Structures are given as C-alpha cells and as structure tokens.
C-alpha cells in the first residue's frame, strides 16, 4: 500500500474517531451530571450514611473498621450512660478512610466530645493487604480531586494513578466502573434503592450487631490451628509508617476540634488474640506520645466465650452488648 493511501486511510480513521468522541463526550457528560444529581450521598452504604449527618452534637463517636462497627452497641451504651453517641465504624475500613470519614463528619458541622478509636494490628499493615476492600471509593465521588480525598485514597489502596485521573476527568467513567453500585435502571427510575436500608445496620446509631455464630466447631478448630501455626512462624507486628502517621493524624484532627481521644482494641476470640501483648506494646507507645488513653480489651473476659462471637474477630449481638457494658464501666471508672 502506498504512503499516500495509508495517510488517506489514517485521516479517514481519525475523522471517524473524532466524530465518535465529539458525539460521545457531551452525552456522557450529561449522563454524569444526571447520575451525580441522583446519587451523591444517597446510596445505602455506611460511609454515605456518615456523610449525610449534618450539624449534630454527639457525646462520643466510635471510629474504626468492622470491629468497631459490629462490636460496639451504641444504643446500649447510650441507655447506660445517658449519652448520645454514633458509630462511625465501616467494614474493612483502614485508617485512611477513617480519617476521611472523620474529617468530612467535622466539615459537615458535627461535633464530638470524645472520639473512641478502634486500633488493631491490621490497622498498621498496608491496607490493600490487610483488608479486602479498604476504601469505598464509590462513596466519595463528590470529593474527587480534593486533596483530603486524594491523600486518603492513595494511602488506602493506591489505585493506578491513571485510573484515578480517568475517574476525575473522563465523564461517566466512575459510574461505569462502579455500575454495580449505580445500576442504570435504578438511577433512571429512582427505584428507592438508595434508601432501601438493606445493609442491616441501625440507621439511628450506626452500629451493626451480628446474629449467631458463623463458624462450626470444626471450622473454628481448623482456623485456630492455622492461626497458631502462622503466628509461630511470624512474631513481629508489621507496621507501615504511613498507617501509624495516619492514626496520629486522626488524633490531631480530633484535638483540633476539641475532641478527647481514646484508643481501644476490642475483644478477639481466643486463640486469635495471642499476639495482643505485642500490639499493646506498640499502641502504648503511640498513645503515650500523644497523651491518649488506651483500653486494652483484646483479651477481655468475653474473649473466652465462643458463644459471644460471630467469628474470630467479631462479636455477635450478645457479645457486643456484654462488651459494650464492660467498656462503659471502664469509661465511667476512668472519669
């Protein structure tokens, strides 16, 4: 094929591609605007529930991963201590997302007297290794491009920079990527899915108490054995400096809003809590350096009763109530 013919072919191709883009972009841009107007802060997801809270005053807030979300019963604590609390825990959430949630919570005009932060060994590991989904990207589209969001997302699960850039700049890219969360039909018809409340958490307090016990005796014995075998091979607590710094940032942010901070580690079923001392030592250092009280409850007496647990790391409803009661006693005696 001659060069002239090739050039002719190429320019014909470019024209078609340009036409396709010229027609596509405005359409996608309109779709993007339409989606955004419908869905921002309206999805049935815990972070969006947190973002929907505005100008509220709380005596305390619980912050952390599922071990805060599931293990602490705000209703029970409130009725015991005559307080108004909120559970800001999000499943599989690492410190960067906790920081972002707290920051947004304050920016929305809310105030907290005491912030109770759940601290775990997993929290100090790289989030993408420690958690299956450490950051709910799809809940924060309205923050795309803002520094507080960019910082958190890259600390949490480092999406490829290009992908993040596409989400920011290419119209509709983000909604296409997460269209399991934003199904076209629902968005178009306002099918109530945004408020469906299927996630099963208490939409008043933000806690999610689990029912029963997930593991059979056989599964429990098997996973206990595996855990012990793994732990004998690996003694040291892996600490990612970035995660440690993020925890300290959470403390500073709270202090900046006149909030008292308490760390705690919630109970884990024996023998999954056998590395508690190592964690305590590490968190103690951070707590002392930042003048924070630390409640070491990983080996609390509830951790001996399998009937109080849903799985190795999560209490069930009865367990959460029992633990909350014991936690409140500690708070009261600490006062």
């Amino acid at each position, binding site marked *: 094929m001659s060069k002239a013919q090739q050039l002719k072919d190429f320019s014909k191709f470019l024209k078609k591609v340009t036409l396709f883009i010229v027609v596509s972009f405005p359409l996608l841009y309109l779709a993007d605007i339409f989606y955004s107007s419908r869905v921002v802060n309206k999805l049935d997801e815990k972070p969006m529930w947190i973002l929907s809270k505005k100008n509220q005053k709380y005596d305390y807030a619980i912050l952390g991963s599922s071990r805060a979300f599931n293990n602490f019963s705000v209703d029970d604590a409130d009725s015991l201590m005559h307080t108004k609390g909120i559970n800001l825990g999000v499943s599989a959430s690492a410190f960067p997302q906790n920081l972002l949630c707290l920051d947004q919570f304050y920016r929305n005009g809310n105030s907290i007297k005491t912030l109770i932060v759940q601290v775990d060994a997993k929290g100090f590991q790289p989030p993408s290794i420690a958690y299956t989904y450490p950051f709910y990207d799809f809940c924060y589209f309205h923050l795309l491009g803002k520094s507080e969001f960019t910082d958190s997302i890259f600390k949490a699960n480092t999406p490829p920079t*290009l992908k993040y850039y*596409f989400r920011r700049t290419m119209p509709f890219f983000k909604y296409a990527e997460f269209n399991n969360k934003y199904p076209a039909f629902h968005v178009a018809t306002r099918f109530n899915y945004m408020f469906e409340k299927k996630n099963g958490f208490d939409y008043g307090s933000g806690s999610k108490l689990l029912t029963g016990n997930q593991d059979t005796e056989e599964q429990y014995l098997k996973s206990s054995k595996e855990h012990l075998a793994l732990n004998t091979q690996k003694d040291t607590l892996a600490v990612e400096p970035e995660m440690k710094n993020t925890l300290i940032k959470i403390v500073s942010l709270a202090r900046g809003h006149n909030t008292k901070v308490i760390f705690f580690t919630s109970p884990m079923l024996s023998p999954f809590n056998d590395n508690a001392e190592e964690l305590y030592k590490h968190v103690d250092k951070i707590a002392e350096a930042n003048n924070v009280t630390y409640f070491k409850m990983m080996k609390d007496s509830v951790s001996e009763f399998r009937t109080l647990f849903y799985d190795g790391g999560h209490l069930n409803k009865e367990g959460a109530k029992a633990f909350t009661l014991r936690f409140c006693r500690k708070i009261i005696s600490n006062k």
Partner: protein
Amino acid sequence: MLFNSFSFLIFFPVITLLYFVLPYNMRWLMLLAASCFFYMFFVPYYIIILLVTIVVDYFAGILIEKQTDQKKKKRWLVLSIIANVGVLFVFKYFNFFIDNINTVAAFFHWNYSLDLLKIVLPIGLSFHTFQAMSYTIEVSRGNQKAERHFGIYALYVMYYPQLVAGPIERPQNLLWQFHKKHSFNYDDVTGGLKQMAWGLLKKVVIADRLAEFVNPVYTDPHSFPGISIFIATVFFTFQIYCDFSGYSDIAIGASRVMGIHLMKNFNKPYFSSSIAEFWKRWHVSLSTWFRDYLYIPLGGNRKGKWRGYLNIFIVFLVSGFWHGANWTFVVWGSLHGIYLLFGSITHAVREKIRLAIFGNKMKNLGKIIQVAVVFFLVCFAWIFFRAENMDKALYIAKNFFTGIPEYISGIGKKGFLWAEPIVMNRYLKAVWFEYFLIAVFIFAMLVVEFLQKKQGGYLWIKAKHPAVRWTMYFAGVYSILFFGIYHKNNEFIYFQF
C-alpha cells in the same frame, strides 16, 4: 492482564500506536516485549517456563528440518513433544495423578501417601504448549519451514492477543505474518475495533451478568430448588459461549487492527443441528488441532468403522482432559464422545424418521427441532464442565431433569413464584430487571449472529445506512458502559486451562 481490565484499556492503544509508528524491523521486538509484559501481569516468574519451551522448540524445529533421516527427525520431534507435554504434566496433571493414587491407596488402607506440589497453574499453559507443538509437528511434516529468527519464533508462541486462551494458531497461518510489512489499513483497523467491542459486550454485559446467577447455584447447589439449577445451567450455556467467544473476538480484533489475521474460533455453535456440526463451530482452533494432530495420526476413519469410532472417543476423552485435571472434565469430554458416536451410528435411522415426520415441506421445522435437541444435549454436558466436583455434578444433573416438573407441580398449591428462580447476588439489586437485560442481550446477540451468518460476517452492518450503523455502534458502546460488570475483574473462564 485481562482484556476487560483498565490496564488493557491503556495497554492496547499504546501498543497499537507504537506498532504503526515504529519501523517494520523493530515491530517484532516491540510486540515481543509487550507480550512478555502482558504475560507477566499474572505470575511474572512463570515466563521462565515459557522461555524454556520456546528455546527447546526453536532448536528442535531447526534440527528436525536439518535431518534427512526420518528416524532422527522423529527423535527430535519426540523430544520437543516430551518437553511440552512434560511441562503440561508437571504443572497441570501431576497433582491430579497423585491425588488419585492417594485416594486408591486410602481405599485399600495402604499406608502410602504422596505429597502434592504446591504450584499454581501457569495461565494459558495448555494453549501455548499446544501452539508450540503444532509448530514442531508441522516442521517435521514439511508443511512449515523452521523459523530461523529466534525473536519471531518467540513471538509466535507469546503473541499477546492469543497467548492465554487462543485461538491456537498454526505456524502456516501466523509465522509469515510476523515477517510481513503491515501498513495502516482502514478496513482492518475499524473492523478489528468493532470485533473487539462486540467481544467485550459479550463478555462484560452478558457473560459476567450471567455469572452472577450461575456462580451461587454451582457453588452450593444443595441450597437451591431444581428450577434454579435448570435455569443456572441454561444460563451457563450462554455464559461460557459469550465468555469464550467474547475473548476470541477481542483477541482476533486486537490482532486484526495491526493487520495480523488470526483464525476464526467460533461460528455460531448454538445454531448447530448435530453434535458433529457443533464441534465444527465450537472452539474451532482446538477441535481442528485434535483432528490434525491426534485423530488423523490415530488412523482417523481409515482403519474401519469401529476403529474410527474408537478414535473419535479417544479424541473427546483427551479433549476433556485437556480442559482440566478433574474427573468432571473427563466426563464432559466422554459425554460429547458418546453423543457423537450415537449420532454417527444412528444417523441413517434418524434421517429416515425425520423425513417420515416432517418430509421435505417442513424441513425447517425439523431443523429447528434438531437445533433445540443439540442445544439441550450440549447444555446438559456443560453441567460436568462447570461443576466443581463429581458429587455436585451428579446432584445438579439429577435436578436438571426434575427441576421443571417439580416447579410445575408446585404452582397449583403455591403460585408461580413459589420458588424464587435464583437467589441473586447482592450486587445486582433488581432481579426482574436483570432477567429482562439478560433476555434482551441474548436475543440481540443471537439475532446479530444469525444475520452475520446469513449475510457474511460483519458485512451486513457495512451495508446499512450510516445513521443505522452509527446508532448501532453507539448502542453497543453505551451498553458496555452502562450495563457492563466491572466490580469483580472477572477472568475469562478459559484462562484456567
């Protein structure tokens, strides 16, 4: 790297652009480097395995060609085949054999247990070893000259569009194309891109959506009523087609954009009116591979009718085993072997019955019934392909037949919705709308493929008015954007082989 991933969205245009920008003599190097990068996205160090087989087959090819003595020729060929099959055996079948030996030992209470290898199957291993074997076999047969350029030969094995799941190419079709100077060709580029989009639509819109229904049922069939099992199996029949043919379309399209034409892998298989026809239309590159390198060398049908039948059965048995080291695949292959033998043996009788019932006037009705029967048989066989083990496969197979009568008998007492057809994955929220989407897209796919068959491939779109054409392109692209499933990074089913 997956074709349906963000990485590929960047990788493909960059590589294609580089391909056309670079001088001809640099292109092979760039394509080879890109293919290595593509492969190393999965398990990087497995590239060493590929490299070893490439080196062995490269030299084996040259040595085979040099030999004038047939015996020596054969010796080098056998060495090459042993190297390829050996790699395949160690990584894919070793644990299967050990596991079965251990099971037998345990059954006879022998105090004897062998350790399993702790290895992950290299992605696409069966595909590239088969492609490599076809090279040395063709060289030994004198149909292909041994490739002297090591880089080009390595590219033949590693060419990224078809590296992990085919089409399994023949050296006669592919090698020369790497030497050819390809220039920018409008028809190839646009045709390739359209084929890629079509493949992507089949994968992310249809196959991955169907997977949301199929996976829960096949993971835990005991928790579902028979009707769910029936529906899940029919859905899987379409899922695997859209998944694999979607992959092939993307592979063929991506290659065509660069002017390199790969062989067709699918030809509307679910429109087949016999099992024999089905295998001429399904995974064509593999079925012709088995025909050329196993069935014919075994004697084909030249050694008598019954020996021919035995050869067919052997081919299907091996084909089943090629797919996976699990008894379920062996049963799947054997089932197809049995179908084919039954079809061949009873062909004359069935034709007489067909003529007696439908005659020549209702030929089309007879054909439709044949297509439906073949679809049902293929559908049933997929149970063994998809099930995780034989226990689950047998349970599903049993309920596949009882599902509909059980459902119908329950309607009178409990109403039409007595058994929720399939418990949906929580990510897909409106069940009925998902069913609607599935129905629309499968119907659209069948219509499009039927029209392609009638009017010669993609030409039928070309013949339409530009407004109609562009509406269709936009509909396709927007369907991918709005209805594709991306949250799981679903791998292609055939990557596991």
